[in-house]
């Protein structure tokens, strides 16, 4: 099973306040175990750009999709036997607080790829209104008739991988306070709009990423730049 781990940090302070040494040994261990598929730190939420699509009217806004106290500072896509193993992997991460979300079934393992020179990678969170009744547009292509296939084709090599997440009700939030790990049900923040999927984009610049996001069809798309290297 595949999971998305989303590392949380208070919006004030360093984007990813993680001690380098414990992080290195965690990465080494998980790499040896073959757990890690893709991941890394994200730039701070102030570098985020949100594309909103309301009935075809697209607006570009500064900042993340939700102004929560905690923000996602980094992520990992992992392969684990089950939820328990995913929670154990998250609990061992030195970041402390992590939302663990299973991915919808059927996701192919993403091929790792070197970043092309002169490009910028963005992690795009595909979000929708939890309280609304609108149809969830999924970022996956298990069904040949799914209109998302057209978008995936259009994005072409600029989209490296992406998939739908299981709903926030299936999320677990792992908190590590001074070595004591607690696990609670639900996402890290009870916001009206929730992350429902992701896509990893590799673009020439922000305008290209905005253009791709605008054509996705989901109501809210949050583009987070990923530092190179």
């Amino acid at each position, binding site marked *: 099973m595949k999971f998305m781990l989303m590392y949380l940090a208070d919006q004030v302070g360093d984007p990813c306040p993680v001690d380098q040494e414990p992080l290195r040994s965690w990465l080494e261990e998980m790499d040896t175990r073959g757990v890690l598929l893709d991941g890394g730190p994200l*730039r701070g939420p*102030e*570098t*985020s*750009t949100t594309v909103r699509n309301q009935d075809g009217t697209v*607006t*570009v*806004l*500064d*900042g993340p999709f939700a102004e929560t106290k905690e923000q996602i500072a980094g992520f990992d896509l992992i392969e684990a036997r089950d939820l328990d193993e995913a929670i154990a992997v998250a609990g061992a991460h030195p970041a402390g607080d992590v939302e663990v979300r299973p991915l919808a079934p059927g996701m192919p393992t993403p091929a790792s790829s070197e970043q092309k020179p002169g490009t*910028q990678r963005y992690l795009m969170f595909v979000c929708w209104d939890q309280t609304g009744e609108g149809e969830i547009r999924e970022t996956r292509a298990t069904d040949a008739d799914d209109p998302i296939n057209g978008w995936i084709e259009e994005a072409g090599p600029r989209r490296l991988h992406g998939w739908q997440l299981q709903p926030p009700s299936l999320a677990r939030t792992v908190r590590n306070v001074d070595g004591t790990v607690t696990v609670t049900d639900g996402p890290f923040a009870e916001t009206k709009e929730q992350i429902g999927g992701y896509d990893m984009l590799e*673009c*020439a*610049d*922000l*305008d290209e990423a*905005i253009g791709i996001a605008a054509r996705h069809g989901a109501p809210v798309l949050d*583009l987070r*730049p990923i*530092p190179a290297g």
Partner: protein
Amino acid sequence: MSEQSDPVAPVFHAQWGRLVAGLIGWCGDFDLAEEGAADAFEAAVVAWRRDGPPERPLAWLTTVARNRVRDRLRRRTTELAKLAILEATPTDEVAGPDGFPDERLRLIFTCCHPALPMPARVALTLRTLCGLTSAEIGRAFLVTGPTMEKRLVRARAKVRDGRIPYRVPPPQLLPERLNGVLAVLYLMFNEGYAASSGDSLVRTDITAEAVRLARLLHRLLPDDEVTGLLALMLLTDARRAARMRDGEVVRLAEQDRTRWDRAQITEGATLLAGLDGRPVGAYQAQARIALEHDSAATPEATDWAGVAALYGLLPATPVTQLNQAVAISMVDGPAAALAHIEPLTDSLSGYHLYPATRADFLARLGRVQEAITALDQAIALAPTGPERRLLVRRRGELRNGPQ
């Protein structure tokens, strides 16, 4: 040394934006470009006062700035790769009419990118294109210099880390992005002109910078709405000298029209004449309204029906409808105008000009008590001293009976 004989100050004012724009195009980094530009002007202060200004100041400044940027990069060992790029970059710059590239158009689109917060767009534009310091921008927007500096640092970080492109947007994005640029310039102009708060002297500067940028945009990117906005600014700013008297805002109807800037009105009118027969955009419609006022010798001579019709061309926002009501009151009378603004009560509840305008209609209908109550509300909401003083005076006049 007096201001007049300082060879650097006028060049700074005229060329800062072009120098920075060219440097960003060359090294791709806002911080480095600004530091390099500042270094070059610092060097100019010494060299030009000693030897006199060079024949081509911008070329001189660019050469010095590039050398300083290279020096700064050499000191940063971690950026050796960047240095290699700098050394190797061929000059593929497009030359301007004076044989020197003008990349300010790219810069203005980058500074006004929708992924930046609006206050940051205004600040970044004033800093990088106009050369205002963070302390100066801060004074105009009522924040401290360090707070404004932080805002600028964050904005530049977003440009760099989010990879906001440094370019004029491609044709399919241009109309939308140009609207965004015009919105920034108009906000800047209004902040300066309306003096909603803050230091009035600095605010006059901001207005002047907004007009300068609109002129620049008009020259570099001919577009009807750019022309419309420039005309709107000129035709509004033409009334500046008559707009304040003894620390009190003077209403349009009561302004001394001989103090209006005729040259600016003529320039605005000429710009609008060039748009005759073209589709009327929102800025052009507002400019034409301003021109109707500017061309009337007296308030009574205004073509009020024409003004009301022009308001009809604008998006029907509450503020537009409120302004339209003033014209309606002159054509169809205050009762019709009052009915026109009645539905706006809720949406404009925090806007002092709503009860102020309502008071005017009520007073003309002889409903003096209601007018005084409306003025009480307007006075409580007025954002600045000069506007409050005007309202207090009007209330006094109503209380003392007809003049």
